[in-house]
C-alpha cells in the first residue's frame, strides 16, 4: 500500500494499539462504546408506549396583540388537546433572571415564533392536520429591531479605572472603531427534545436533552405548581449543547409537561431542525465602539469602550452575558485608564441566550481588532505589542482585581508564535503583498489574537449557586459520583470518575456515575461557564478526600484495600461537598469592583488563510491555538474542546450568519444556515498550556469557552494581512471583503 502525502499526523504513540482501556495515558470515554455502536439512547430514541405527540403553535408576527386562538369548527377536535395560557396551573413564566418570559403568550406577542398555544394528538397525522386548523387572531403592534433605537433596557454596567478622557487627549495615536457581530446558532446536531411522563403523585417526570437539569426542575415546579418531589428531571444522552441547551429546554419541558398532565399520557415534544433554529436562542448580536490611546513608543494608555447587545424580546440571560462581555472587553492587557460601558436592549426578535463564550467573543473580537490595528498604526509586530502589553502576575484589572496567580498570557502567546512560526510567515506574506501584481488571483495572510476568559461564574455567582457534589460508597461496595453536571460531549462522565479514582486510589472502572436524575443527584449547578471541570471537579475531589478519610479512620488501612470491608461492616457512606468561597476572592455585585473571576484561562491563536481575490472567498488553512487550561485532566478531551471551539469560531468569523426579515430568521434551516464541513475546516493544532489554579485541589481552570473567544479576530487579521483591508463586521463574508477591497 502506498501512502501519498500529505498524510495525517498522529500524536506520538497514537498509531500503536494502546494498553487496554487507555489512550495517551487517560481512560477512554466512558460512554464511548455505547455512542459508537448506536446503543446510546438520546431522547428521541426512547419509546414510551401510548405516548402522544405534542407541538407548539407559534406567532408569525414580531409584535402584536393576541386577541384569540381560533379553532376551525369544521375539524373534529375531540381527539386533540389544545392548551393556551389560561390552562397553566402555576405561574405562567419560564424561570430565569427576570420573570418576564411567559411559557405561553398571555396577550402580547413580542417576537416571531413565540409559543402561543400547545396541541397534542395520538398520531402525527392528526397532529399535522390539527396544526393547520388553528389560527391566531391578532392586531399588529409596531416592532423595534435595532438595539440602538430600542428603549427598553435589560441591564447596564459600567466598569473603569483611571482618567480615560485625559489619557486619550494626551495619546499620540487614537485608534477608533465600531465593530458589529451578528447572531450565531449553536447548531448542536441533536435538536431539542423532551418527553413528559405523568407520575402517580400528580407530578411529571421529564426525559430530555439539556445542560441544566435543575434549571428545568425549578421552571417545572413554578409553572405547574409542583413540589420538589413531584417534578423529576432526567437528562438523557445529549447530542451537543454549546449553551443552546441552557435555557430553552426549560420552556420545552413546561410545554411537554402541560400537555402530558392534560392528556394523562406521555407526550413527546421533539423539535425538527427548522423549529429549533427558528425558535430557540442564539448568540447575542453586539455593536462595540472602541477608542484606544497609545503613545508613539508603543505604550497602551487608555481604552474607552461602549458595548450594546441585542437581547431579543425577553431578558433570559442577557444581564450575565453582558456582564461577562464588559468584564472581558478591555482584553488581557495592562492599562491604567479604562472605561467600559454596556447595555443590553430589548428588541422584537427571538430572545438571545447562552452560547459558548457568553458575551466574551463579541467584545474580545473588538478588542483584538483594535490591538491588531494599533500594531499596524505603530508599524509594530502584533506579537511584540502583545508581549509588551499583556498581563503578568501582580497586574491589576479594570475592576481592581489583582492577578495573583495563574497568569499565562505570555506563555500561550509564545507557544502559539513559535509553533506557527508567526514572524517568519508574516515576513513572507508581507513580501508577497508588496510584490503582488495587479492581476493576482489569490493572496495569503497570517493573523493572531490573544484573549483571557474568566473561569467559572462571574463575580459572586458561584457563592450564590452553592453547588453540591456527592460521592457514595454503597453498602454493596460500589463507588458512585453524584452530580447534576451533564455529559454533553465534553467528557463530564469520564473526567469525574477519573478524578475520583485518582483521589481514592482505585481503578477508573471501579467508579460509577449516578444517573443525572434530580430525584437522585444533588444540585451541582448548571453545566455552563466552563465551570464543570474546575468547580464541580474540585467538589468531587473534596468529597472523595473526606470519604477516603472516613473509611481509613474506621478501617485503619488504605481506602483502596479496605473500602469493600468497610461497606460490608458499616453499610453505605455518602459524602456531599458544598462549594466554599475561594479564599481571598471577593467581588462587589453593586459597584462591580473586585475579583470578577477566581482566575482566568488564557489563549492565543495564529491563523493562516488564503483569499481568492476574484470572489473574496476565504480558505482558512491552519489554526494554531495555545490554551491555558490550568491542568488538563484528560488531554484528548481537552484538545477536543479546543479543536471544536476553534472550528465554531472559524464559522463565526467566515460563514455563519442569520439574516432577518421583519424580525424573522430567514435562513432557519440547515440548507440555508451554513456551518463548516470537513472541507471547510482548517488543520487545527491545539497546544495545551498548564498554569494551575491553587483554589481547586486539581488545578484545572476549564477549557470549553476559551478557544471560541480567540479565533475570529485572528481570522480577520489574517484577511487584512492578505488583502490590506480591515473587516469590521462578522462574518467576514465575501460580500463584505469585496466591498472593502473596492478602490
Amino acid at each position, binding site marked *: 500500500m502506498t501512502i501519498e502525502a500529505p498524510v495525517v499526523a498522529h500524536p506520538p504513540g497514537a498509531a500503536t*494499539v494502546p494498553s487496554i482501556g487507555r489512550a495517551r495515558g487517560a481512560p477512554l*470515554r466512558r460512554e464511548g462504546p455505547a*455512542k*459508537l455502536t448506536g446503543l446510546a439512547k438520546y431522547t428521541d430514541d426512547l419509546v414510551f408506549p401510548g405516548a402522544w405527540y405534542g407541538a407548539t403553535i407559534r406567532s408569525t408576527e414580531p409584535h402584536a396583540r393576541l386577541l384569540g386562538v381560533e379553532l376551525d369548527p369544521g375539524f373534529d377536535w375531540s381527539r386533540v388537546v389544545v392548551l393556551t395560557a389560561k390552562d397553566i396551573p402555576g405561574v405562567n413564566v419560564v424561570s430565569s433572571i427576570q420573570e418576564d418570559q411567559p411559557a405561553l403568550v398571555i396577550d402580547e406577542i413580542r417576537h416571531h415564533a413565540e409559543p402561543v398555544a400547545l396541541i397534542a394528538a395520538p398520531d402525527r397525522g392528526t397532529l399535522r392536520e390539527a396544526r393547520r386548523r388553528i389560527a391566531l387572531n391578532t392586531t399588529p403592534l409596531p416592532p423595534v429591531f435595532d438595539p440602538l433605537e430600542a428603549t427598553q433596557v435589560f441591564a447596564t454596567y459600567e466598569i473603569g479605572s483611571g482618567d480615560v478622557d485625559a489619557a486619550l487627549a494626551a495619546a499620540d495615536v487614537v485608534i477608533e472603531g465600531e465593530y458589529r457581530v451578528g447572531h450565531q446558532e449553536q447548531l448542536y446536531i441533536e*435538536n431539542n427534545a423532551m418527553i413528559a411522563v405523568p407520575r402517580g403523585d400528580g407530578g411529571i417526570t421529564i426525559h430530555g436533552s439539556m445542560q441544566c437539569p435543575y434549571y428545568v426542575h425549578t421552571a417545572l415546579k413554578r409553572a405547574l405548581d409542583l413540589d420538589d418531589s413531584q417534578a423529576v428531571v432526567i437528562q438523557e444522552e445529549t*447530542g451537543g449543547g454549546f449553551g443552546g441547551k441552557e435555557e430553552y429546554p426549560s420552556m420545552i419541558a413546561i410545554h411537554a409537561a402541560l400537555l402530558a398532565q392534560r392528556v394523562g399520557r406521555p407526550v413527546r415534544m421533539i423539535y425538527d431542525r427548522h423549529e429549533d433554529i427558528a425558535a430557540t436562542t442564539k448568540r447575542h448580536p453586539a455593536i462595540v465602539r472602541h477608542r484606544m490611546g497609545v503613545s508613539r513608543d508603543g505604550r497602551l494608555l487608555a481604552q474607552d469602550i461602549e458595548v450594546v447587545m441585542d437581547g431579543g424580546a425577553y431578558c433570559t440571560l442577557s444581564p450575565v452575558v453582558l456582564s461577562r462581555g464588559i468584564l472581558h472587553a478591555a482584553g488581557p492587557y495592562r492599562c491604567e485608564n479604562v472605561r467600559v460601558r454596556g447595555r443590553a436592549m430589548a428588541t422584537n426578535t427571538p430572545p438571545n441566550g447562552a452560547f459558548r463564550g457568553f458575551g466574551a467573543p463579541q467584545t474580545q473580537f473588538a478588542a483584538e481588532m483594535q490591538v491588531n490595528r494599533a500594531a499596524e498604526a505603530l508599524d509594530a509586530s502584533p506579537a511584540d505589542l502583545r508581549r509588551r502589553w499583556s498581563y503578568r502576575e501582580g497586574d491589576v484589572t479594570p475592576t481592581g482585581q489583582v492577578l495573583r496567580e495563574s497568569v499565562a498570557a505570555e506563555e500561550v502567546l509564545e507557544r502559539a508564535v513559535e509553533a506557527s512560526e508567526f514572524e517568519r510567515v508574516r515576513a513572507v506574506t508581507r513580501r508577497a503583498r508588496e510584490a503582488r501584481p495587479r492581476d493576482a488571483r489569490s493572496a495569503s495572510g497570517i493573523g493572531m489574537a490573544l484573549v483571557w476568559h474568566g473561569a467559572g461564574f462571574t463575580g459572586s455567582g458561584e457563592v450564590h449557586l452553592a453547588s453540591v457534589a456527592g460521592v457514595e460508597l454503597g453498602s454493596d461496595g460500589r463507588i458512585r459520583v453524584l452530580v447534576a453536571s451533564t455529559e454533553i*460531549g465534553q467528557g463530564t462522565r469520564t473526567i469525574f470518575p477519573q478524578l475520583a479514582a485518582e483521589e481514592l486510589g482505585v481503578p477508573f472502572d471501579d467508579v460509577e456515575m449516578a444517573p443525572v436524575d434530580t430525584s437522585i443527584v444533588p444540585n451541582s449547578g448548571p453545566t455552563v461557564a466552563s465551570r464543570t471541570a474546575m468547580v464541580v471537579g474540585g467538589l468531587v475531589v473534596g468529597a472523595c478526600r473526606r470519604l477516603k478519610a472516613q473509611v481509613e479512620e474506621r478501617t485503619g488501612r488504605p481506602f483502596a484495600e479496605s473500602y469493600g470491608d468497610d461497606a460490608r461492616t458499616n453499610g453505605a457512606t455518602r459524602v456531599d461537598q458544598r462549594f466554599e468561597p475561594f479564599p481571598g476572592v471577593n467581588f462587589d455585585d453593586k459597584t462591580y469592583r473586585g475579583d470578577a473571576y477566581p482566575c482566568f484561562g488564557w489563549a492565543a491563536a495564529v491563523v493562516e488563510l488564503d483569499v481568492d481575490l476574484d470572489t473574496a472567498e476565504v480558505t482558512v488553512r491552519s489554526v494554531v491555538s495555545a490554551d491555558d487550561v490550568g491542568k488538563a485532566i484528560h488531554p*484528548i478531551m481537552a484538545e*477536543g474542546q479546543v479543536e471544536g471551539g476553534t472550528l465554531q469560531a472559524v464559522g463565526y468569523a467566515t460563514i455563519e450568519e442569520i439574516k432577518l426579515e421583519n424580525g424573522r430568521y430567514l435562513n432557519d434551516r440547515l440548507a440555508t444556515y451554513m456551518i463548516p464541513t470537513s472541507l471547510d*475546516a482548517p488543520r487545527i493544532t491545539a497546544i495545551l498550556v498548564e498554569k494551575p489554579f491553587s483554589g481547586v485541589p486539581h488545578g484545572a481552570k476549564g477549557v470549553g469557552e476559551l478557544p471560541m473567544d480567540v479565533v475570529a479576530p485572528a481570522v480577520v487579521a489574517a484577511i487584512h494581512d492578505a488583502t490590506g483591508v480591515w473587516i469590521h463586521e462578522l462574518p467576514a463574508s465575501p460580500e463584505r471583503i469585496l466591498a472593502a477591497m473596492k478602490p
Partner: protein
Amino acid sequence: MTAAYRFQVNGEPVELPVPGMRRLLDALREDLGLTGTKEGCGEGECGACSVLVNGEVVDSCLVPVCQLEGADVRTVEGLGDPEHLSPLQQAFLETGGAQCGICTPGMLMAAGAYLDAGGAAVDADIREAIAGNLCRCTGYTKIIEAIALATERRPVQRP
C-alpha cells in the same frame, strides 16, 4: 393498499408492510427499533442519518422504502457491539473521534465506506469522504485522525 417491501438490514431479511414513501430513517428507527441512525435535519444536509445502501452512503431521511426492494442496507448496529468494537469504532474511541456522539453513527458509515473502498491515510481524501457529515463538536480533527488510524491498522490487501 400498502405493499410489503423486502430488503436486508445488516444481513437480516426484513419485510415491511408500510407506505412506499415512508422514509428509510423512520422504517429503521420506528418499525425496526434501530435507533442508532439519527435525524439531524430531515433534508439531507447533516448526514446524521447516513446508512449504506448496496455499499453507497445515503441519507436515510431522503430515501423512501419503495426504492429499497432487494437492497442491502447497513447501519451502525451492524458494525460491532460494545464488547467487540470494529477496528474503526476502536480507532474513534482511542483518538477521541466521538464527543456528543450524535453524528457518530453516520460518520462511521461514511468512514466505513471509505475504508471499504481502499481509502488511505490521506488528509484531503478523508475530508472529502466525510464532507456530507456535519460534526459540531470536534472540528473534525480527531475524526480524521481516527479514520487515518483505522486505515493503517487495516490488514494490507495484496492484489
